[in-house]
């Protein structure tokens, strides 16, 4: 009988500017050691489903942490209210996000049973932030789930304090897994092509999977966009990718 237990709780960590920010963490309770995973929540916020994803990574053998990127705008607010407030203020500035992601990575590495390897995964706006994490933060793998505006020009009325990352792809320091729906408009299949071309031109380690019959947010189990076949396969691809890049000593790959 395999012992299967997870500790999940809210904690405070130090993020950008040494600010105290809220985070949700889930860790396997066996001695490990365990790699870490940073879960970057989608634009609708630090919600029940993001916490569920965080717990799932713990069941997969990772110490996981999901920082509440809207802590500062909306402390203790309900996730939808926090997301609305963040949207009205133009979203999360990249510099602040990077500081929070660095804080999350440092917290994961401070755990007594950490291996030191840390990965990141982000959904929706978090997909772009996952790529940014691979550029700015010391991580060994990163996963972009349908992040918009990694490449491409934002439309008129775009209020967020972010821009495309195309010119920064040469700085990407971590292997990248990308999961995309072919019916998505942001990012469109053409934008996914453009990102893939940039990764190839810069000799980056990457792996893309694109799903027919799926659009944006196909992992979102509580939304009409949920596509079980794409999501089930996507989770398998995530598990495989992380096993190869965050367990290198264990599996002996790469």
């Amino acid at each position, binding site marked *: 009988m395999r012992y299967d237990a997870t500790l999940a709780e809210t904690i405070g960590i130090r993020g950008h500017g040494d600010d105290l920010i809220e985070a949700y963490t889930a860790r396997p309770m066996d001695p490990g050691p365990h790699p870490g995973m940073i879960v970057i929540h989608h634009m609708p916020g630090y919600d029940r489903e993001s916490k569920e994803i965080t717990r799932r990574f713990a069941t997969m053998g990772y110490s996981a942490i999901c920082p509440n990127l809207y802590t500062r705008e909306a402390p203790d607010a309900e996730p939808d209210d926090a997301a609305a407030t963040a949207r009205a203020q133009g979203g999360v500035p990249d510099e602040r996000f990077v500081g929070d992601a660095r804080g999350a990575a440092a917290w994961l590495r401070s755990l007594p049973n950490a291996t030191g390897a840390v990965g990141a995964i982000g959904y929706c706006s978090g997909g772009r932030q996952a790529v940014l994490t691979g550029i700015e933060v010391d991580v060994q793998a990163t996963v972009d789930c349908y992040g918009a505006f990694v490449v491409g020009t934002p439309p008129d009325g775009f209020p967020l304090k972010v821009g495309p990352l195309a010119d920064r792809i040469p700085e990407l320091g971590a292997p990248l897994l990308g999961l995309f729906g072919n019916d998505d408009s942001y990012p469109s299949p053409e934008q996914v092509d453009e990102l893939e071309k940039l990764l190839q031109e810069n000799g980056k380690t990457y792996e893309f999977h694109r799903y027919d019959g799926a659009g*944006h*947010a196909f992992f979102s189990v509580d939304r009409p966009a949920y596509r079980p076949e794409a999501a089930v396969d996507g989770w398998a691809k995530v598990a495989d990718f992380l096993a190869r890049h965050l367990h290198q000593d264990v599996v002996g790959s790469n």
Partner: protein
Amino acid sequence: MCTYSTEKVALARSSGKTRDGWQPMSQATVYYDHPVHAPDAHTVNIDFLGREPGSRVAVELSLESARELLAALEVTVERAKHH
């Protein structure tokens, strides 16, 4: 989420009824994006925002309902000139 595009309107001398009662509303954001509650994949969403994140009056409208609301607003604002 999908398009990120957001129209913002500063509100003056305006109020909304929140879960904590009536409060001044200072800003409205309007955007077409994934709803939290309404059944469509995308809706026209309006957030009336007040003093704090929790004092928000939010609606998620189907495109058809949003068009009808827009027409009703135009008629009402036009009519107000004659009062």
